[in-house]
């Protein structure tokens, strides 16, 4: 059959007001999740390099479990599975934020671990030799340097997590992809709508890349 397809610009433009309603959800899930994920990443990343086994092992288990299973399975588990356990429903937005938080938290833990371990041992020796406690040495000498090195991989993780939220259409959060699916159900303009959806993701991730590059440049200038 000869394809008669022609890109319908009008249909694409018409879909924008409806699709754009998904952006706040996409951003809310991404950045809400990433914020909590960052906190989890610091906590579990630091625990995973602790010498005490009862701190190290649980942290390592958390990291391996959430890195080693698909985020789609994780969010389905949280949304459909967890209510059985806690005896009440979880709203899709909360489930989405929780999934991004737990999943990015595992990856950010590894970023934190790598960042901290990349700092030369001489730095902590210098701090300790000056009389600083281990805690003081860590927070005023190691962490600021490690954090600077963590910025590029953290940015990378943020972009991955933003894209991961697209999977959450399956639990019915009104994010970008979900809005697109709903719109297509009544207009049958799949090509145009998914094209606009893709452009919107790109707009978000490119803005983030740009901001990160500026932050990085500023951070490196002083080292």
């Amino acid at each position, binding site marked *: 059959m000869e394809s008669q397809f022609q890109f319908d610009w009008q249909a694409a433009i018409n879909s924008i007001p409806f699709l754009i309603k998904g952006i706040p959800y996409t951003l809310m899930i991404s950045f809400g999740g990433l914020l909590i994920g960052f906190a989890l990443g610091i906590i579990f990343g630091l625990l995973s390099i602790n010498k005490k086994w009862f701190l190290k092992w649980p942290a390592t288990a958390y990291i391996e479990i959430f890195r080693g299973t698909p985020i789609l399975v994780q969010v389905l588990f949280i949304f459909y599975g967890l209510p059985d356990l806690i005896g009440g429903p979880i709203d899709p937005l909360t489930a989405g934020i929780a999934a991004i938080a737990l999943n990015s938290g595992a990856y950010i833990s590894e970023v934190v671990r790598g960042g901290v371990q990349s700092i030369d041992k001489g*730095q902590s020796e*210098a701090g300790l030799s000056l009389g600083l406690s281990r805690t003081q040495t860590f927070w005023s000498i190691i962490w600021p340097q490690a954090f600077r090195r963590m910025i590029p991989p953290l940015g990378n993780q943020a972009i991955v997590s933003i894209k991961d939220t697209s999977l959450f259409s399956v639990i019915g959060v009104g994010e970008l992809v979900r809005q697109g699916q709903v719109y297509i159900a009544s207009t049958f303009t799949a090509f145009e709508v998914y094209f606009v959806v893709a452009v919107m993701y790109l707009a978000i991730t490119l803005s983030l890349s740009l901001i990160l590059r500026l932050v990085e440049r500023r951070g490196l200038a002083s080292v």
Partner: protein
Amino acid sequence: MTQIVQMKGMNKYFGKLHVLKDIELSVEQGEVVVIIGASGSGKSTLIRCVNGLEEFESGRLEVDGQALAPKGGNQQALAEIRKEVGMVFQQFNLFPHLTVKKNIMLAPMKVKSTSQVVANATAERLLERVGIGSQADKYPSQLSGGQQQRVAIARALAMEPRLMLFDEPTSALDPEMIGEVLDVMRELAKEGMTMMVVTHEMGFAREVADRVIYIHEGQIVEEGKPDDVFDNPQNERTQAFLSRVLVR
């Protein structure tokens, strides 16, 4: 005279490797002790034990009246010792994210709760003293190696230590910068600072040391006044070592 460092029958192992063997050593207040020896002889490990950067397995170590226990015991004493003992490293180990001045101000403000105003004044005075007063607001990476090492000395001095440890302070420097660092150390010695110096600079050792110690495979095999050790070494190990390093 008061003894500031006392080591008695101190032993240290890295795994199976016996790196320090029955070390007997004491350092008097105001004394400059230079430790020489081939690389891997244990001389760096020896001074790193003094401020607890290395643990030891048996024996006794007392620093400034505080007794350190083997295997990193007695953390309380260790904390006290580190406030009183400054250290200068081969690789400088300046904090790259802080300006030169902030490098010097950090420890007094964090450890002794010195006010910012006082810490700032101290930093400026010390930078002047090591001859780099004009570089205070630069970052370490913007300085030459010799300047960085002088900042590192100033940073240690800011804690007003009673003892300074120098772990091969000139080994990572370009030859033309060694002199400026040794000059600062010479000044310090002249002012009466107690110093333990690990170095390959034999000229400096001969000129500044009150006592020279030669370590071979973790053992002190010779010690004495620099002229005696250099001109008339008793132990054949020392003779062999000196004939290698003093040839030039």
